[in-house]
């Protein structure tokens, strides 16, 4: 028998999700370059149907939908990636610390986490946007602040049972230090959990940004953003249904891709 992989290989659905996600990311990279300036209006050509000249048509102010959607997708994916990373890193570090260190550290960190958890994530973002209306950073800070608790709680719970288990006890007896225990015992067990949490966290970020844009407390027009675009294009639904369908499809692609990558729960 040859060395077998310790991790479950990706399923077909996960590959499909990854492909959808890659296409969305590619679109967000290419479309802004091809589509030109997303803010330039051309009132002679409003709500033009998709054609060779403007592949996704133009909106009610004659702006290129290709450019606007490209920028919006880029913004959403960037925010998702940034906030997931800034939430995951402290979440994991603090979770391991709480499981490892004294009871006092654990109580303190858990109390803070519970405090953050008591505040709904969206409310936290809305509160922060009050300081800087229409700016990007309140979303980033708000989402990261709301999301790190999940990582903290999941990592703390699994690390606690692992650290008390015989495999870690055996390694300590064999003379291994904390770095080895984290590398060999904790991280391999935490990776599958983190992958799921991170993909769902990214989907939450994308959806939150769009939801806040849709209800008008998010980024302000004319910034291209999926939620604000939807609410801008909603009045023109009768004449140009394809226009509002475009940001919705981008959102659907991004979220579906992320959900598929998360995969099914691993039963062992």
């Amino acid at each position: 028998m040859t060395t077998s992989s310790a991790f479950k290989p990706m399923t077909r659905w996960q590959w499909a999700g990854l492909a959808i996600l890659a296409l969305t990311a590619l679109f967000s990279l290419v479309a802004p370059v091809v589509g030109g300036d997303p803010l330039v209006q051309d009132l002679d050509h409003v709500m033009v149907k998709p054609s060779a000249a403007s592949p996704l048509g133009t909106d009610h102010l004659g702006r290129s939908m290709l450019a606007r959607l490209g920028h919006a997708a880029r913004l959403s994916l960037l925010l998702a990636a940034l906030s997931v990373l800034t939430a995951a890193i402290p979440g994991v570090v603090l979770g391991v610390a709480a499981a490892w260190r004294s009871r006092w550290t654990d109580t303190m960190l858990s109390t803070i986490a519970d405090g953050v958890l008591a505040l709904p994530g969206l409310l936290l973002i809305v509160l922060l946007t009050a300081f800087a209306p229409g700016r990007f950073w309140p979303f980033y800070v708000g989402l990261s602040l709301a999301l790190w608790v999940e990582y903290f709680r999941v990592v703390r719970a699994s690390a606690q049972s692992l650290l008390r288990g015989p495999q870690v006890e055996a390694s300590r007896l064999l003379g291994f230090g904390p770095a080895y225990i984290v590398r060999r015992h904790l991280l391999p067990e935490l990776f599958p959990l983190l992958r799921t949490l991170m993909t769902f966290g990214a989907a939450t970020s994308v959806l939150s940004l769009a939801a806040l844009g849709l209800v008008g407390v998010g980024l302000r027009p004319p910034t291209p953003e999926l939620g604000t675009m939807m609410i801008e294009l909603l009045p023109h639904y009768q004449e140009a249904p394809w226009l509002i369908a475009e940001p919705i499809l981008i959102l659907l692609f991004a979220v579906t891709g992320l959900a598929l990558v998360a995969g099914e729960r691993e039963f062992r």
Partner: protein
Amino acid sequence: MTFLDVRDLSVHAGTTAVVRDVSLRLEESQTYTLLGETGSGKSLLAQAIMGNLPAGLRPSGSITVFGESSTADETVKRRRLWGHSMALLPQEPWLALDPTMRVLSQVAETYQRVRRPSESRESARKRATGDFLTLGLEGAERKLPGALSGGMAQRTAFAAVRSGGARLLIVDEPTKGLDAGLRDSIVSMLKQVAANDGAVLTITHDVAAARSLGGTIGVMLDGEIVEQGPAAQVLAEPRHDYTRRLLAADPQTWGPRTQPPPLGPVLAANGLSKRFGHHQLFANLDIEIAADERFAVIGPSGSGKTTLGGMLLGLVPPDSGSVWRRSDVPAWKFQKLYQDPIAAFAPRASLRTSLRDVVSRHNLGWKEVEKWLDRTRLRASLLDRLPDQVSSGELQRIALVRVLLLRPVLLVADEPTSRLDPITQQETIELLAECLVDAGCALVLVTHDPAIAGSLASRVLTLNPPSPPAP
């Protein structure tokens, strides 16, 4: 009445047969015990009879249950009998209980949903409560399975299986890892099932359990029944060579070993006490262990043996008292072997990686590993596997190699062989004893089996069952 008649049952994995031409009969009020070592195909035989073989395995032959015959692959026919006519008590019964449901409700639910005719909600709870009383489980009714001890979980699973009303019961390794007291109570429960117009097919590697179950015994080797007959006859005058080896490996028949003379102390404990909840596990224990000495701690389950072992290694703090360990050697010269070796390895790292980590941490050479692998008769190719891809016996030997690499001065072995079949158990204990002599290492053996302790150790400490709380 014939409850079960199996004819020429085989189980094929691809082109190889893992169970070959097994025929057996089980009449009303009888017990049949399949005896054999781990990996001999006993559990597969049980699954083939039930009709729940894992995917990829193909049965052939015929199986008649309560007079209704079916070919081995007509699993749907037998599946209809599950629960209320024939039932399987699986290995590791606590895995078969729902971890999120209180245990009394799990038993009552079976009375309500599985039994024919089914019981009303009230009478189901009443009967389940009655079962808990007769099985000595009173007080556990409202607990979740995670809060039960191994023996209690075993009895709860038994109650749940019984409440379905099945008269044909198939039991897979019911005494694995249990001490003699619990083993006897499980065996008497099974005998009662047979006495009340039932029939029990037991699968075990436990010779003592097979002896007290009586009835018919079939000895299985490499997927075949090599010897079959009344228990008394098979156990007293085994005809097949394998049966003789199996009986000879029973710890009760081992002779005492010659003991090396004691040297200076490696560990000394003074006035150790530990309470667990309201139970006093032990109080004021003084222990001194000499280098090269073999010391055993025995006692029934729940008596604090494992806790004491952990305390000697400094893993568990005592309530009072102190432990002195030789201070002129590093802390990692004190090592431990675990009851369940698979729990002591990083599950996603290959065994080679785990061993290489130890070698590089302590600047040893890989030659050392090869030497001990050789000594424990392990093939080096095993190391490319993950911990769950080798047998428990092999893994326990690899665990032994891992601790011996460090040339320990003291090894605490916590029930190192209680999950192994008798032959593997005997080999492992032999190896342990030989390797400890080679390594010049003292041993604290924690076990429930006085026979193993008596054979291996020069001194035995017996812990009493936990004392009830003072009134």
